[in-house]
């Protein structure tokens, strides 16, 4: 039997076929439009984890000795329920925190948000998507009135005359997407990549700019300055479709190219060439990814690039405009249905009385019983075990200890909890610290929807029976809700939950009410917004391209928002003289809990990438161990000497414990995104004692 489903990893959600009964074979699903059968090695090898020897198949409870002992599901859930009830009775519902993930299906994200607000009654829920594309989400909402990562299908990127990728290494992070770059160049279009590292993606570009980490905002300001100077602003579009241009125009006046050069490290001549290129092109597309977004000025940085798209009259025009390349598998859907501390399903805001009424009606509870806004992801972790903070944390779909910034501190906070419960399929670094581990099903063993980076809702279908002893997140939520004496029952049937999600989202920004599983199968995905009963112009349900007529703001116009470059929160100084930036490598995904366990994915561990000039300065060489230190932590890893990185910057991939001990927890004031992408570091030869490298 063959089942069509989707790869368990990134936001591309490549379509794939799974066949076989005992051991699944992955094969191409050529008809699925996003990847047309193409996959990277992560996708091809994804089935291996299903039968992995490290797979957890029984709940585990930690003994006082620190050892785990197997427990029955009844025992484990009873234990967790009892502890949660006790804490709630003693300290109130906000003493229980919930941490979700951008890899959870829409149904799980929805149920988790509902579970928090109704079964537990806590406001303390957020998720790791906060560390993914929250800056772009915030900026998109402010500028366009709605946040859908790509407001157009991915394939459109090959049609733009000029495509600018700001801080995206899609050739490694989502390789099948890079087909569109190849196609774009074959068509004679121009691809621009902006990144402190000349990545595999940059190698596919016609123009490559290599800015100082943390200066993408200044770069955008200088670019817009030149666009204004060259007279390339689309005045008619600006007048008819936007508001706020004058303030933005004034704000870029002080970003003449030589000033931009000094801040960004990009020669003024290159800025001028780029400005000429985008100013004279018919269709310009600008895509941001984690590079510019994971900064303490990430949302303003995205706004600065959006301002360019608006000034050129590109947003809403065919094959043009701004978009965000979401990272996690369900990064998009995960932020729409209520696992974010400030949101309810359908991308409704939790402090909007009308939104509360609507959702409470669907849930069958009084609106006033829905708690208010909680803490954002990092702030939630920072508060764990503190006086006003949660005393228990339930973790679904996240490996916090690897993926959170300032990981030493986060580890201390986790240790300060009275109860840590982790639902995971393997013994992740975070699970290892838990009091209770609940083993869960994997992607091929369950059904549910995901929303990919284009806002296309797709269906993950069960292809194989899960091993005995594991349960789905939905079953865990149901079991705990019952033990917490939830006033309402929780379904475990994905399709039933999806229908409810549709009703809850109806009338919201991300309206799923017209979508059904059958429709997804039929249309090979449905783009939201898809209000019930509305058929799009092409005869399909859903909205493939947004903003063609108007924006989702009250006025129907896009908002120009003036921003100023503040710079990274931590600048290099005499003590910590180089920039540190972090990112991903092709063979691994996120915290690596899945991919590091797959034999065919190379796992050489972390490394420290640096330019030969810096290596010479430090007296080190390729392959030698170095210690990287920041004000927050340190790690030891071998050097990789490459000419492709800025000589004032080192790069460390974050899939292993280490990189995030170094990263800065400075938060973006609007999106609450931590500054993963830039901080100040010191690199030195790793000291050895008796021939052994000493690691703190």
């Amino acid at each position, binding site marked *: 039997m063959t089942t069509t489903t989707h790869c368990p990893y990134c936001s591309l959600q490549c379509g794939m076929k799974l066949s076989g009964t005992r051991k699944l074979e992955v094969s191409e699903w050529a008809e699925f439009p996003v990847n047309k059968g193409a996959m*990277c090695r992560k996708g091809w090898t994804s089935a291996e984890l299903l039968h992995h020897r490290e797979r957890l198949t029984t709940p585990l409870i930690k003994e006082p000795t620190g050892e785990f002992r197997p427990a029955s599901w009844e025992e484990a859930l009873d234990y967790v329920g009892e502890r949660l009830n006790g804490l709630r009775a003693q300290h109130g519902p906000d003493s229980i925190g919930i941490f979700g993930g951008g890899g959870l299906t829409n149904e799980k994200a929805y149920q988790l948000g509902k579970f928090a607000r109704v079964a537990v009654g806590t406001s303390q829920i957020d998720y790791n998507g906060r560390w993914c594309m929250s800056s772009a989400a915030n900026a998109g909402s402010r500028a366009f009135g709605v946040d859908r990562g790509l407001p157009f299908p991915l394939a459109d990127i090959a049609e733009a005359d000029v495509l600018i990728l700001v801080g995206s290494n899609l050739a490694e992070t989502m390789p099948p997407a*890079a087909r569109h770059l190849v196609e774009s160049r074959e068509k004679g279009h121009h691809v621009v990549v902006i990144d402190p590292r000349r990545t595999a993606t940059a190698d596919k570009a016609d123009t490559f700019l290599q800015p100082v980490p943390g200066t993408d905002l200044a770069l955008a300001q200088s670019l817009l300055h030149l666009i204004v100077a060259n007279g390339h602003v689309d005045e008619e579009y600006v007048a008819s479709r936007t508001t706020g241009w004058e303030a933005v125009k*004034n704000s870029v006046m002080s970003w*003449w190219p030589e*000033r931009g050069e000094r801040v960004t490290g990009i020669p003024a001549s290159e800025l001028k060439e780029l400005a000429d290129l985008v100013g004279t092109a018919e269709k310009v597309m600008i895509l941001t990814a984690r590079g510019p977004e994971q900064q303490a000025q990430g949302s303003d940085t995205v706004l600065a690039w959006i301002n360019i798209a608006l000034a050129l009259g590109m947003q809403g025009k065919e094959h043009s405009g701004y978009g965000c390349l979401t990272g996690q598998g369900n990064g998009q859907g995960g932020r729409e249905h209520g696992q974010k501390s400030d949101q309810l399903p359908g991308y409704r805001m939790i402090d909007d009385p009308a939104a509360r009424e609507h959702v409470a009606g669907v849930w069958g509870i009084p609106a006033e019983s829905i708690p208010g806004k909680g803490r954002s992801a990092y702030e939630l972790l920072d508060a764990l075990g503190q006086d006003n903070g949660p005393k228990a944390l339930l973790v679904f779909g996240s490996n916090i200890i690897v993926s959170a910034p300032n990981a030493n501190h986060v580890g201390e906070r986790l240790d300060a909890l009275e109860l840590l419960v982790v639902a995971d399929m393997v013994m992740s670094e975070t699970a290892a610290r838990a009091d209770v581990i609940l083993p869960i099903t994997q992607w091929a063993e369950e059904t549910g929807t995901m929303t990919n980076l284009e806002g296309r809702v797709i269906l993950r279908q069960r292809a194989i029976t899960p091993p005995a002893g594991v349960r789905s997140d939905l079953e865990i939520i149901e079991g705990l809700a019952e033990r917490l004496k939830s006033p309402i029952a929780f379904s475990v049937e994905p399709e039933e939950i999806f229908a409810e999600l549709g009703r809850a989202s109806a009338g919201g920004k991300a309206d799923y009410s017209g979508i059904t599983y059958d429709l997804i199968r039929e249309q090979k995905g449905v783009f939201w917004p898809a209000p019930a009963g509305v058929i799009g112009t092409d005869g399909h349900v859903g909205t493939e391209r947004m903003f063609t007529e108007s924006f989702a703001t009250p006025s129907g116009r896009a908002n120009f928002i003036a921003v100023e470059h503040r710079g990274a929160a931590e600048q290099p*100084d005499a003590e910590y003289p180089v920039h540190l930036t972090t990112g991903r490598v092709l063979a691994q995904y996120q915290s690596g809990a899945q991919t590091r366990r797959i034999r065919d994915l190379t796992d050489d561990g972390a490394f420290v990438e640096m330019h030969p*000039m810096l290596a010479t*300065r430090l007296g080190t060489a390729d392959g030698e161990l170095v210690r990287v230190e920041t004000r927050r932590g340190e790690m030891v890893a071998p050097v990789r000497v490459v*000419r492709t990185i800025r000589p004032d910057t080192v790069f460390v991939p974050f899939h292993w414990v280490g990189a995030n001990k170094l990263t800065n927890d400075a938060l973006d004031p609007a999106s609450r995104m931590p500054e993963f992408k830039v901080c100040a570091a010191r690199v030195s030869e790793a000291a050895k004692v008796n021939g052994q490298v000493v690691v703190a």
Partner: protein
Amino acid sequence: MKREKLVIVGNGMATTRLVEELVARRYEGDITILGDEDHPAYNRILLSAVLEGTHPIDALTLRQPDWYAAQGIDLRLGSRVLEIERELRDVMLVDGQKIVFDKLVLATGAIPTLPPIRGLIQLDGSLHPKVHAFRSLADTQRLLDAMEELSVESRPVRAVVVGGGLLGLQVARALSVRGVETEVVEGTEHLLSQQVDRKGGTVLKRHLKKLGTEVYTGARAIRLTDEGLKLDTGYTLDADLIVLTAGGRPSTALARGAGLTVRRGLVVGEHLQSVDDDNIFAIGDCAEFEGRVTGFVPPAWEQATLLAAHLSGEDVKYEGSRSVARLRATGLDVAVLGDPEHTEGDIVEVTNPIIGTHRKLVVDGNVIVAGTLIGDLSRIGLITQLFDRRTILSDTEPGELLMAERPDGDSSTLLPDEAEVCACAGVNAGRIRSCRTFEEAKEKTRATTGCGGCASVVRELIEAAHVPV
């Protein structure tokens, strides 16, 4: 509590930054700005770009008047201050109006100096109609109007730029780009003599000559007559326009009149306060700190930011600025870091007059303390970063920074077997070579099935591996 009255004299770029920073810090006080120009604050740096035609004149405004109103700032344009009365804590305008202050900021900038050329000033005291200064928006407009008028004549317009400094070269290039036949007169022995050495000046002169601009160095203009501009070398240059760019001096008349210590500029301490009066400050071109006046925007902005912090009660001290001067002129690539001709240190330099490059770094304690880059700015983004951040370099780095980057091209058919060809599927060249056809490679190794970027390399490898010998 009584709100503090802050009066700022001058409405240039330093003032704009100061009030922006004060607003950002929610400064609690009443701000009054007295600007003598009628135009709202504009970006002076771009005046030469306006002259060149690469920037529209109507897009120079930094902040519209309604912005000031929205912030509750009293902006008074066309208000010239006559004197400061320190005892009375007020300033008097030329119309006799008095404005009291608790704190006073002087951001009066600089005024162009007139070189000692006879005939510049006519008998009635006005400037000779052919003569133009180049400092303000009004100067620029007047020069543009003059060019417009002259352009109706059938012969090309001719201009002489007096002064071969940064501004002079910018103006010369701008005029030249506009089709004006331009010549430059510089009194010292080489161009940019304040900033660069003789070698650099010579390279620049050759550049300008190639671009069609004649340069007379070691030549002083002494007299303007009907025949033209006479030089002390005996030449007479016929010209329709004479543009004076021969420097400026800090505008300090008000400070001097108020009895404050003035050397070249108003002498200020670590809070940018006058050494005589803690409630009077100076920023920008009119201020002198540790014996230096700056004359550039970035240091003026650093001073403005620091002063805003100080006025908002933050504990900050000014320690001087690192300046990078960039020539904004088409076809002339020049950057000057710090003060390379007057800074102690080891000099690392590469000069190639054949291609017109001269680059030098002044290095002290393995830190770049000054530098000159002429004709090749390919590494400027990195060099200025290292300079600004005072990065301690290795012994060889300054030299490497001045070398061309090594190209790293390769040919796929020469790839060793272990070299990775398809990153998406993790396939090396050897495995590709073991396949007979492209289809087989795709099927067996899954190469090309991800991003597809390696398809051409895979084809080349297979073809090369199966060429009949």
